[in-house]
């Protein structure tokens, strides 16, 4: 084989005791270092008349906040979710774009892999490792549940999934309400499944897109190394942005839904008669 396609799993470059330092992990660590540098530069920049880097960062923050406002319709909520959603967006964006820097996938070490010596790239897009995307998805979903419980209370929040409360109330009303409550009780189970689906869809969508992009670029570079991959690299820039946007927006929606009190059908009917 002349040109090795990137494998599904990130390859370990070296080990620290039993911990495998993979190429994707190196990339994500580089992103962390970039964030540390940016944070270090910005932490004391609180001038009333912003200039340079502070001005740019403020513009980015304001843009993202106005975007978040469109989903939450509440500046207070936006400010509460912003550190998570904005952090997710920027981290995914930076990680994705880092994967397009020349050298990613081409500079590496010759290591023994599956019985033969192969060139293992030192850098691999951080989000083309499922560990990274699953970690972020788990964080986002778990955080949405924690905030949900903290905002609307444990029992009300649990009632979203196990609707025993609604079922109990419906017995007092009788008739069609019992039927509705029973159906909603089973819908509650679907909600639990959908929470798992959220995890899977969030992580696999990002992983799939970035990994596929990497494979596509490798294949194209294998076919014709010059010029042909260029439009696809632009496409990957766009994909990197869109995937960052999708992941963070979905997280924002999950957070917003989780922190919004549920109005049951009965309560809704009482609030809006006719």
């Amino acid at each position, binding site marked *: *084989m*002349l*040109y*090795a*396609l990137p*494998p*599904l*799993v*990130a390859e370990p470059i070296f080990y620290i005791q*039993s*911990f*495998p330092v*993979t190429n994707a*992990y190196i990339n*994500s*660590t580089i*992103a*962390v270092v970039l*964030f*540390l540098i*940016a*944070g*270090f530069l*910005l*932490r*004391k*920049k*609180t*001038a*009333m008349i*912003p200039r340079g880097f*502070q001005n740019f*960062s*403020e513009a980015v*923050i*304001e843009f993202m906040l106005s975007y978040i406002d469109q989903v939450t319709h509440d500046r207070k909520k936006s*400010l509460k979710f*912003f*550190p*998570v959603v*904005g*952090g*997710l967006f*920027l*981290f995914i964006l930076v990680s994705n774009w880092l994967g397009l820097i020349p050298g990613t996938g081409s500079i590496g070490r010759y290591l023994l892999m*599956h019985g033969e010596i192969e060139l293992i790239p030192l850098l691999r897009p*951080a989000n083309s*490792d*499922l*560990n*990274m995307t*699953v*970690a*972020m998805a*788990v*964080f986002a979903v778990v955080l949405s549940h924690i905030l949900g419980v903290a905002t609307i209370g444990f029992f009300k929040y649990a009632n979203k999934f196990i609707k025993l409360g609604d079922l109990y109330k419906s017995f007092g009303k009788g008739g069609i309400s019992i039927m509705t409550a029973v159906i909603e009780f089973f819908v509650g189970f679907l909600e639990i499944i959908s929470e798992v689906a959220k995890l899977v869809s969030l992580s696999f969508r990002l992983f799939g897109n970035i990994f596929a992009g990497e494979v596509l670029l490798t*294949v194209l570079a*294998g*076919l*014709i190394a010059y010029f042909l991959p260029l439009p696809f690299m632009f496409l990957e820039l766009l994909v990197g942005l869109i995937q960052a946007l999708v992941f963070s927006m979905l997280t924002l929606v999950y957070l917003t839904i989780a922190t919004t009190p549920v109005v049951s059908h009965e309560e809704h009917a009482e609030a809006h008669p006719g």
Partner: protein
Amino acid sequence: MLDVSQIILAATEVVGEAAARSEESSSVLGTLGINWKLFLAQLLNFGIVLFVFWKWVVKPLGTTLTKRQERIEAGLKNAENMDVERKKFEDWKAGEMKKVRNEADQILRVTTDTANKIKQETIVDAQHQANKILEQAKSNIESEKTEMLNEAKEELATLVVMASEKILRHKLDPKKDHELISQSMKGMK
């Protein structure tokens, strides 16, 4: 260069490899490369990013943004208040100007009236004085004239007396009498 068949071959190899690994690890997670150590390490990396973003970027810049917005709002409100105050002041100024102008007009009117009155009075007074002086002059002239006439009468009487004496002293012939009378008349003139 790689042709399409080689790519397909490579892809088949990747899938086959993954399947082989799957058999080795005998778990889906293993096939997908999920490793709890790496998972925690990546979670930690992400956690660091979030912490840095929250603590060093969002907090200071967010506070700055809020403060700036408050200052801008306060500034705008101030400007609005200033406008209202300015309008009030201008209204007050216009009112005061009108008042002052009216007062000035009034003062001017009163002054003009007073001046006219004084002028009139002065003219009347002057005329009165002039008349008085004229009267005085006339009466002086009259008395002087009377005095002069009296003096002239006295002098004439004296002359007549003197002439009578001369006539009486010399015997007068009609020629001398005539001459004497002429001389006396000349002396009178």
